[in-house]
């Protein structure tokens, strides 16, 4: 058995145009969400005179730093609906975008280590099934059958008492996902403008009419913010606040190994998640640093705790070497759910607050946000995720409810 071969890239990916004087819509942020938004604006709403502005290089922020896990086993109806729609889009996107990004539905297990975990997990399996999300409960023996390298002895600090399992979940090659969207955006006429940092907004009264950038001023009728960890920095420039706190989230990879890890394993209780990349690296992640930070690096003790948990659960990792660690800045909300919708500034919309779960949400975030930008009204799926919910109290509290803390 050998690792999957990476697919060949198409000959042409995207142009690198200079910004025009004006666009019908400007998307700020050239990561996965910005690219997916522009793609669906062009494809579903016929808006092709649009630009994506990226301060660095395309998809070089969180999109390049995530652990590529895709799943939809969330507890609350609103979250299950949007993430499950996302998963359904993931299933058809490689064909639609004509680009193989190695979406591998190898399944995701969420381990339970305490009686409380077991009960919460079984509840979530039931909720998932009611919401049409594939989910099942596995006992430790079934866990071992699916992932033979897991230690299911009951004499360890965090014994495996079972797991939820979503067979349709999996991983995708994140860079290729970004390039696939970017290539289609370009084909549809979208200008992808890199090295173009937004430095301010131009408003007429309370209505946004333009964007100031390091490459000049751009007039536009609509602005969509897709800047993840930097969303509140942009909101401040535009004169409003977001209930967002930015935290560093880190991940790491080992050197290459023969395929040993056939699925994705996550543990909320000890907070480690592990999958094996197509090339063979073990990809692992942990929780966010407790404090606010924009430094794109994480605390050493977070990795230390995560590695201790990983080595106990997977004894064969004791001899693996860490090759590289990195950090991204995630935008967290108090209810651990995203914000997708209108802002206090007219014609300006925001897609943020995805916290540690943005990658899996990329297609649905793009689809629903494009709908909101094009029509000025919420999509059925993003309506519950409005900024108003912090005032009305209709929170979607996925903290502790979802498979893993945000």
């Amino acid at each position, binding site marked *: 058995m050998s690792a999957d071969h990476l697919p060949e890239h198409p000959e042409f990916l995207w142009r690198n145009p200079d910004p025009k004087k004006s666009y019908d819509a400007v998307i700020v942020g050239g990561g996965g969400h910005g690219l997916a938004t522009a793609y669906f604006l062009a494809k579903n709403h016929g808006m092709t005179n649009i630009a994506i502005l990226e301060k660095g290089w395309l998809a070089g922020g969180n999109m390049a730093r995530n652990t590529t896990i895709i799943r939809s086993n969330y507890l609350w109806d609103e979250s299950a609906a949007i993430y499950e729609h996302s998963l359904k889009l993931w299933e058809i996107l490689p064909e639609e975008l004509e680009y193989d990004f190695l979406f591998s539905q190898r399944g995701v297990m969420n381990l339970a280590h305490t009686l409380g975990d077991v009960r919460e997990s079984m509840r979530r399996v039931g909720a998932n099934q009611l919401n049409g999300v594939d989910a099942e409960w596995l006992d430790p023996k079934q866990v071992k059958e699916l992932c033979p390298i897991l230690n299911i002895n009951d004499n360890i600090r965090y014994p495996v008492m079972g797991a939820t399992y979503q067979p349709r979940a999996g991983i995708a090659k994140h860079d290729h996902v970004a390039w696939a969207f970017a290539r289609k955006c370009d084909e549809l006429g979208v200008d992808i403008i890199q090295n173009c940092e937004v430095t301010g907004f131009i408003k007429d009264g309370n209505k946004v009419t333009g964007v100031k950038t390091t490459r000049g001023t751009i007039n536009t009728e609509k602005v969509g913010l897709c800047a993840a960890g930097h969303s509140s*920095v942009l909101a*401040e420039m535009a*004169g409003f606040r977001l*209930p967002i706190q*930015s935290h560093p989230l880190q991940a790491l990879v080992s050197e290459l190994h023969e395929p040993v890890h056939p699925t994705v394993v996550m543990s909320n209780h000890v907070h480690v998640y592990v999958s094996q990349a197509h090339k063979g690296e073990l990809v692992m992640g942990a929780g966010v640093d407790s404090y*606010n*930070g924009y430094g794109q690096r994480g*605390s050493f003790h977070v990795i230390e705790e995560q590695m201790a948990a990983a080595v106990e659960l997977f004894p064969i990792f004791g001899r693996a070497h860490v090759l590289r660690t990195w950090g991204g800045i995630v935008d967290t909300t108090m209810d651990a759910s995203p914000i997708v919708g209108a802002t206090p500034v007219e014609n300006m919309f925001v897609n943020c607050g995805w916290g540690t779960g943005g990658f899996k949400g990329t297609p649905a975030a793009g689809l629903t946000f494009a709908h909101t930008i094009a029509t000025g009204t919420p999509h059925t799926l993003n309506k519950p995720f409005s900024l*108003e919910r912090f005032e009305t109290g209709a929170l979607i509290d996925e903290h502790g409810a979802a498979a893993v803390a945000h």
Partner: protein
Amino acid sequence: MLLFSCPNCGPRNETEFHYGGQAHVAYPESPDQLSNREWAEYLFYRENTKGLFAERWVHAAGCRKWFNMVRDTVSYEIQAVYGMGEQAPEGLTAPPAAQAKSQPLAPAEAGTTTASEGV
């Protein structure tokens, strides 16, 4: 790993501390008079400064006392440590930005927040 100077115990490892978010967020003076918007501001809206940030920490594995700290959220450099109820040293506060401003969701709903430092 960061090294924090607890005002009571001296320099200790970051892992002994627990984070408490933005400092100097006052409990509303007249909670019974707040609008939904003002409650939202108090409960869910915090500064998210890129740069100097005044925040609270508790020395959970030591003296168990809270204190304030000004830290740079980009370099993680600690600029000042001071007691609860004290103000940040001059020049070490975050730029005024949106601080204390009530940002209405809809312009028509603008209102003023009545808040004080409280105890």
